[in-house]
């Protein structure tokens, strides 16, 4: 009895409730004609697509910068990498890793500036971050029109200048990770081994980083900045590093997302990318100033699982096409729920 209680305490009621809901959706699926193996594949793929973006939340939470609502900034760096990689005509694995390589300098630079900004608004990071994300997206809406790209796959057919809103990766690096060592069982089940391995690698790097001197200092900065300062740690430097890491993970995360999705979405594409990542890590049990890799993994599985299952099961159950409406209600509802459940500690 006590072991069950400690288990519940450790997992937390919100996670148990959501996990039970997800389980019941899977159980109900066959009854309304939704294939379980197909649903499982969808859930796993969506987990892989979003996992790295959610991991990117961890560094900033750990240094007390709060949830990275400015994730679109990192995504923009990733988009720059993706479009440049296409512009240079890189294909296959070279195209994907080339895109990462090209995105990194942008991510580091943008993250550095973003970090400097956040150091000036201590205490209001999350609100400022939201505006940084939104305004950078709007700024890039202009830049996508103006930047001198030439690749015919990307520019508008009629004017010959400006990038399209959606760029197909068909001939470049679509499913480059998904298909690597992919395991297929029957018609409907596919395990995207490469993408999950890549996620594991990114998670390992994050885990290892928090075991170094700098990573330890970052955790202490989030826990008590005064303590860290008295121990000779530069609080601002640690915060800046964490913001750069978050931004870099955002850039890599969107590339993983796109290779699976098959398209590069520009313009307003990054606008609402931060919210699902924020919701996932909160559902995973992170608070506004404490998060770990387990939180990211559990949160992404639960959030993406619910997001995959609810529309398809409900649609089939009530025989109509409400999938988009249901998806929005569910995802935003989960964010509100997660924010109210998250343990807010005063700093």
């Amino acid at each position, binding site marked *: 009895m006590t072991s069950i209680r400690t288990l519940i305490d450790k997992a937390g009621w919100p996670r148990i409730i959501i996990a039970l809901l997800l389980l019941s959706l899977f159980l109900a699926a066959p009854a309304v004609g939704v294939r379980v193996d197909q649903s499982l594949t969808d859930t796993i793929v969506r987990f892989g697509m979003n996992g790295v973006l959610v991991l990117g939340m961890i560094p900033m939470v750990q240094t007390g910068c709060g949830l990275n609502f400015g994730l679109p900034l990192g995504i923009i760096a990733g988009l720059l990498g993706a479009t440049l990689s296409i512009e240079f005509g890189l294909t296959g694995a070279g195209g994907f890793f080339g895109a990462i390589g090209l995105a990194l300098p942008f991510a580091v630079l943008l993250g550095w500036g973003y970090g400097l900004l956040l150091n000036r608004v201590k205490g209001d990071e999350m609100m400022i971050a939201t505006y940084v994300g939104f305004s950078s997206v709007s700024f890039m809406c202009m830049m996508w029109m103006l930047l001198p790209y030439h690749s015919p796959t990307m520019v508008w057919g009629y004017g010959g200048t400006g990038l399209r809103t959606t760029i197909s990766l068909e001939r470049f690096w679509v499913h480059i990770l998904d298909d690597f060592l992919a395991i297929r069982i029957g018609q409907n089940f596919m395990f995207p081994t490469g993408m999950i391995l890549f996620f594991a690698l990114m998670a390992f790097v994050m885990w*290892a980083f928090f*075991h*170094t*001197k*700098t*990573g*330890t*200092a970052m*955790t*202490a900065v989030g*826990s*008590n900045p*005064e*303590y*860290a*300062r*008295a*121990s*000779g*740690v*530069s609080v601002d430097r640690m915060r800046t590093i964490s913001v750069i890491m978050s931004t870099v993970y955002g850039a890599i995360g969107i590339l993983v997302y796109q290779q699976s999705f098959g398209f590069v979405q520009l313009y307003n594409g990054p606008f609402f990318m931060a919210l699902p990542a924020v919701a996932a890590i909160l559902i995973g049990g992170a608070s506004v100033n*404490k998060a770990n890799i387990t939180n990211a993994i559990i949160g992404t599985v639960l959030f993406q699982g619910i997001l995959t299952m609810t529309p398809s099961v409900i649609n089939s159950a009530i025989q109509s096409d409400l999938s988009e409406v249901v998806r929005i209600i569910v995802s935003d509802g989960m964010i509100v729920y997660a924010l109210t459940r998250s343990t807010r*500690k005063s700093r």
Partner: protein
Amino acid sequence: MSEQEPLLELKGITKEYYGNRVLTDVCFNLRRGEILGLVGENGAGKSTLMNILFGMSVISETGGYNGEVCLEGTTVNFQSPFDALAAGIGMVHQEFSLIPGFTATENILLNGEVLHDNIVTKVFGPRMKTLDFPAMRAIAKNSIDLLGVNISPDTLVAEMPVGHKQFTELAREIHRPEMKVLVLDEPTAVLTESEAQVLLTSLRRLADTGIGIIFITHRLQEIFDVCNRIVILRDGKVVREVATTDTTMPQVAELMVGRDLSGHAAASTEYDAATETILAVEHLWVDMPGETVRDVSFDVHKGEVFGIGGLAGQGKLGIPNGIMGLYAAGGKVRLHDKDVPLNEPAAPLAAGMAFVSEDRRGVGLLLEEALDWNIAFTAMQAQNKFMRPLLGGLIKWRDDRAIRDLAQKYVKALDIKCTDTNQPAQELSGGNQQKVCLAKAFAVEPDVLFVSEPTRGIDVGAKSLVLDALRSYNRDKGTTIVMISSELEELRSICDRIAIVDEGRIAGILPPTASAKDFGLLMIGRRTHEQEAVNNHD
């Protein structure tokens, strides 16, 4: 006026906070037209006593108090400051509780405005009444005049000099006709000498109108200037109640600070002044809010325990915080004859100094993290201890096993009560948290260790454990310790020399065997001629 019947009477007031007795059987009374000086060291119980008198919620929340408060012969027990105000008790705090954007008049009559009806009130009720500014202005002017100062009732508080704000606050308390007892908590702390004189004169004048005044201050001179009687509190007890004319200032200072324990003070070994100077501080200033250090110079010899004492707010806490780079500072700090840069917390740590902060929860601990992290973190960051270099030193990998071993060593050595070294620091009691802070500083293995208020807020048993740990660390490792404490007895029991800080400067350095009277006089800024001579000699 019946002079016999006391206006306010406190009978056997006893108060405990969580089993920690802060007031024991406090009795005294206040007559009409009398100014009563209430003196005592920090923590003697003055503020608790005033909180009880004023019905502050902190008292009832922590279980109320025992004893009786009688106002004009009837027992009262205020549940909130509003009750106290209504009964005619007013209080002027150290911190200003004025609204900067309002004029003097508006502040003085806040929530007591003179109202009159207008057309709208007939329809919408009394909440729509308008203010009668001329009447309010007259009342404000009256009460300002009563104080004998010249402040225009129309001045904005934000534009007033500090002294005028204090008078405005006083005027707010006295404008009410029902005012009987006025409590002033360190009203002169922020005033210049001439302003303080004016205030004292107005107090006298107020008392002459029949109001009873309780006057709390650290400046004994003011007590002797204005008070009829003095009540001296120490460790929550009234140690003496005496008419001002029957005592002298040195006597009061001695009573305040404590019994003269010169016999068994100075537990440490003979102090040898010939040892080399390890730390030299020259003309240090520190901008620490509430603890400003103006100009401090002193030398600390190798292997000694150097004490720094003084009353709260005089700057003793600013000294270690400034040297360790936590607050903006200037001047010169030399360790082993090498300059230590100020304003960079990493520099003094690297040079071999460590600091146990007085702000245990704010600065001293990572409350949400495990004990082993708390203990090892500073040494890890400042000195690269508990790190394993990987890839030829490119990556500094945290050595969790070494950190746990270290924590276990200190848990055992200092007898820290915890379930294991993974327990978060916030779950420990105050005394054990303090031991963790000590362990953190010990882990740095410093040459000079600053310990600030090591026994604040911990119980008696833990106090002696902490002091013993410091003493044995000093003896066994030969570490030089600079200890800052508000408790003089504590300093005298452990230190080789004690410097007393007053108004941001060192008022004097005494051996622990010096009399309580000498310490008391230094604390209240009254140095004797000999000490002056000694200081100049340095």
